[in-house]
C-alpha cells in the first residue's frame, strides 16, 4: 500500500437514509382562475360559484360553478340536440374515431392530468400516474373498439342508443370514473351530461379541453359542476333517459326512489366492505403487500377496498406482525412527491367521518395500531390504521369507513370465512389468498361479491366487468356487460 493510499481519513459513516423530497413539477398544469359549465361545446357563465381546494394544503386552486336547475336544463337541452342532430345516427366506426382520439390525447397529456388529479384529490402522484391515467386511457381505447361492433356484441337484438345519459361520479377516482362512464355511453351513441364530484371537478373541466382537441361535436358531452343539489336537479330532469351513479349507498337509494316509475334506466355502483381472506398456506409476504394495497391504496377511498381482513387463526399472529412492520415503511405526505405511498384525505367532511368511526372502534374495544408518522400540519390527513381484536358486530366491521382503516377479524375454516365475508349488507368485492387453486374456485363460487380477486387485490381492466351485489348496487361497468346499460333493444 502506498502512502497516498494510507492517508485516507475514516470519517464517521452516516447510517440513516432519508429520501430527499422528489416532487413532481406543477408547472405543467395551467389552471384558469374561474371555470363555468361546459355546455354545447362552450363555457357558460355560472350563476353561483364555489372554491375548489387542494386537500393536502387547503390552498384554493380555482373557482368553479355551482350548477343550478337552469344550468342543468341548458346542459340537457344541448345533449338532446346533439343526440338528435347526428351523434346517435353516426356510424359506429365514426364514433370510434373520436374515442380513439380522446384516448390518445389522454395518453399524451397524462403527466398534466396526473398532477392535477393529485393536486385536487390528494392521491399520491405515483397512483395517478401509474393507475388512474393509464386505466382511463385504456377504457377509452377499449370502448372505442366496441363502437362499430354492437351488432355482434348483441346478435339479433338490434341495439340502439338510449338518448341522454345523466352521469354522476365520485371524488375518489375523478378522471377514471369519468372514463368508466363516458366511454361506454359514447360508444353506444348516447350523449351525456356529467356531474363531477363537488370536491374534485378540475380534471373533468380540464378534460373538456381534450374534447375540444378531439373535435367532438358540441353537446355530445356536457359537464355541470356543483354539489348534491346539482346532482338532484339532474336526476329529476325530465329530459334524461338514463342515470348512472357511482357514490354512497345512501344517495344511491334516494336516486332509486326518485326514479321509481319514471321509466328512466338506472345503474348504481355504491359502497362496499370487502373481505380480504387470508389462508395459512398463502405466500405470506405477498399477501401482506396485497392487504396494504387493498386498504391503503388511494387512502382507502376505494369502494372495493379490502377493509376487512379475515385472517385464518393459525396465521393471524405472524400476519399482523408483518403487517404492522410493513405499515411503518409507508410514506405518508405530499401527494406530489414521487415517493409518497399514502396521500391526503379528500375532504374535511370525509376526515371527520373517518375520525368518528375510528373513535367508535376504540370505544367498542378494538385494539388500534398506527405507525409513527409525522402528518403535515395543513390539509386533511389520517395515519394508516389497523384495528385488531375486532368483533363482527362492531361498527368498524360493518360500516364503510372509506379511509385508510383496516379491521382484522379471524376465522378457522373455509366455511366460516365465507359466512363472515358474506355477512354484510354490501357485496362489491372480495380477496382470497391461498396457494391452493381448488380452494380459490371453491371460495369464489360462494362469495357474494361482484369481483373476487385471487392472490391480488384492486386490479382493474377495462375488459373485466365491475359491479356489486346487494347494497353495493346493480349494473356492470367494463367489458361487454358495460355496454348493455347504455342500449335499448328493438325487438
Amino acid at each position, binding site marked *: 500500500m502506498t502512502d497516498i493510499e494510507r492517508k485516507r481519513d475514516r470519517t464517521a459513516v452516516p447510517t440513516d437514509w432519508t*429520501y430527499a423530497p*422528489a416532487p413532481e413539477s406543477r408547472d405543467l398544469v395551467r389552471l384558469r382562475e374561474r371555470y363555468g359549465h361546459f355546455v354545447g361545446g362552450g363555457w357558460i357563465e355560472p350563476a353561483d360559484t364555489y372554491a375548489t381546494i387542494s386537500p393536502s394544503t387547503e390552498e384554493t386552486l380555482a373557482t368553479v360553478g355551482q350548477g343550478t336547475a337552469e344550468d342543468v336544463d341548458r346542459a340537457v337541452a344541448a345533449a338532446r340536440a346533439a343526440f338528435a342532430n347526428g351523434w346517435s345516427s353516426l356510424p359506429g366506426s365514426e364514433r370510434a374515431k373520436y374515442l380513439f382520439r380522446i384516448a390518445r390525447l389522454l395518453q399524451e397529456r397524462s403527466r398534466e392530468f396526473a398532477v392535477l388529479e393529485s393536486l385536487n384529490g390528494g392521491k399520491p402522484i405515483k397512483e395517478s400516474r401509474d393507475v388512474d391515467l393509464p386505466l382511463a386511457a385504456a377504457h377509452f381505447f377499449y370502448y372505442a373498439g366496441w363502437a362499430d361492433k354492437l351488432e355482434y356484441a348483441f346478435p339479433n337484438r338490434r341495439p340502439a342508443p338510449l338518448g341522454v345519459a345523466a352521469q354522476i361520479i365520485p371524488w375518489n377516482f375523478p378522471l377514471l370514473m369519468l372514463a368508466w362512464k363516458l366511454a361506454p355511453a359514447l360508444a353506444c351513441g348516447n350523449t351525456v351530461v356529467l356531474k363531477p364530484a363537488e370536491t374534485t371537478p378540475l380534471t373533468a373541466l380540464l378534460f373538456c379541453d381534450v374534447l375540444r382537441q378531439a373535435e367532438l361535436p358540441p353537446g355530445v358531452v356536457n359537464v355541470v359542476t356543483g354539489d348534491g343539489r346539482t346532482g338532484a336537479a339532474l336526476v329529476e330532469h325530465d329530459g334524461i333517459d338514463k342515470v348512472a351513479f357511482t357514490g354512497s349507498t345512501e344517495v344511491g337509494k334516494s336516486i332509486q326512489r326518485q326514479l321509481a316509475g319514471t321509466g328512466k334506466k338506472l345503474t348504481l355502483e355504491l359502497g362496499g366492505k370487502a373481505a380480504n381472506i387470508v389462508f395459512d398456506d398463502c405466500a405470506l*409476504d*405477498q399477501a401482506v403487500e396485497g392487504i396494504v394495497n387493498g386498504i391503503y391504496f388511494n387512502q382507502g377511498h376505494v369502494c372495493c377496498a379490502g377493509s376487512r381482513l379475515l385472517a385464518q387463526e393459525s396465521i393471524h399472529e405472524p400476519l399482523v406482525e408483518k403487517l404492522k412492520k410493513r405499515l411503518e415503511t409507508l410514506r405518508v405526505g405530499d401527494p406530489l412527491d414521487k415517493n409518497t405511498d399514502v396521500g391526503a384525505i379528500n375532504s374535511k367532511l370525509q376526515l371527520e367521518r373517518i375520525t368518528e368511526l375510528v373513535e367508535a372502534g376504540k370505544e367498542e374495544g378494538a385494539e388500534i395500531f398506527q405507525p409513527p408518522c409525522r402528518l403535515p400540519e395543513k390539509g386533511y390527513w389520517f395515519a394508516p390504521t389497523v384495528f385488531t381484536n375486532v368483533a363482527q358486530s362492531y361498527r368498524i366491521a360493518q360500516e364503510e369507513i372509506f379511509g385508510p382503516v383496516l379491521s382484522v377479524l379471524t376465522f378457522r375454516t373455509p366455511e366460516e370465512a365465507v359466512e363472515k365475508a358474506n355477512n354484510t349488507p354490501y357485496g362489491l368485492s372480495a380477496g382470497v389468498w391461498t396457494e391452493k387453486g381448488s380452494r380459490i374456485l371453491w371460495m369464489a363460487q360462494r362469495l357474494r361479491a361482484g369481483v373476487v380477486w385471487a392472490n391480488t387485490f384492486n386490479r382493474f381492466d377495462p375488459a373485466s366487468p365491475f359491479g356489486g351485489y346487494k347494497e353495493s348496487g346493480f349494473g356492470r361497468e367494463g367489458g361487454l356487460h358495460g355496454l348493455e346499460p347504455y342500449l335499448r333493444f328493438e325487438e
Partner: protein
Amino acid sequence: MAQAPALPAGFELPLELRLLRIGSVDAVALEERAASLAKRSIKKDAKVFALELAIRTTDLTTLEGSDTPGKVAALCSKAIRPDPGDPSIPSCAAICVYPNLVPTARERLAGSGVKVAAVATGFPSGQYPTKLKVADVRSAVELGADEIDMVIDRGAFLSGRYAKVYDEVVQVKEACGEAHLKVILETGELGTYDNVRRATLLAIAGGADFVKTSTGKVNPAATLPVALCMLEAVRDVHEETGRRIGFKAAGGIRQAKQAVQHLVLVHETLGSDWLTPDLYRLGASSLLNDILMQLRKERTGVYQSPDYFTLD
C-alpha cells in the same frame, strides 16, 4: 451465532426444526413489489448517500481465467482509493478473486481495511466431490482469504437432495474457521422464486453468514425480484431467530441506478440496520466507475467523459 450441527444421514428436511414455516412465494406479486420499489425517486443528498454506500459495500470482483497478479494489484489499488482525485470517496468493502490470487491481494491490501474474498468449492459450477470443495476452502483460507464465497450444488438442489446441499454448507462453514462464509445460490439456475426462498433458508440453516444471488457467470443474475425474495427470507429468519444474515447481490449490476434500486430494496425490507458492509454487499466489476461518474456529477453538476475515470 449458533452453528447448525451436521444431521444424521437420511434426514431429508432439516429446515422444519429451525424454521416454523418455509412458506411460498407468489411470483406476480413479488415482481410487482420489486418494480414499485424500483420506482423510488432518489435525489440529491439521498442519492449521494446511496452512491457512497454502494461503494462502501462493493466487493470489487475479477473472476477470469486471464487474471494475473498485475491485474489484481491494480484492482486492489482501485478498491482502496476508487477515485485518486477525490480522497473523500470511501474504499470498497472487499476484493473478490480466485484462490490463486489471494496472496497478491492480501499483500496489496494489508492495513487498508479492505477485505479479501475468495471464491471456492469448485466455483462456478460446484460440480465436484464434497471433499475437494472442502479442501478448496481450506486452502483459500490458508492463503489468507477473509471471506469465502461458496456455490451450492444446484444439481443436488434441483433433484431434491436438500440434505446434501445442507451438509456441504455445514462442512464448508466448518472449514472456513474465522473466515466469513457467503453462500452463492446461483438463482438464475433455480427456476422459481419458491426454490430461491428454499435455497436461501437452507443456506442459512447450514450456517451461512451471507447469502448471495449469483456467480456472475449465469444470466439472469441479481434481478430485483430475486433480491427481494432473498431479503424477505433473511427478514423472516431475523424475526424468528434474531440471527442477522448478510445479503450480497452479484451479477448484472452495472449501473449506479441499479445499485441504488438494490439499496432501496434492502432499506425498505430490512431497514437501516442492514445498510452496512457487515450485512450488505454488492458484487460488481464495472459498476464502480459508473458510481464515481454519478458522484462527480452530483458534486460538480456536470457529467465528465469516461476518460477521467481509471480503467483497472
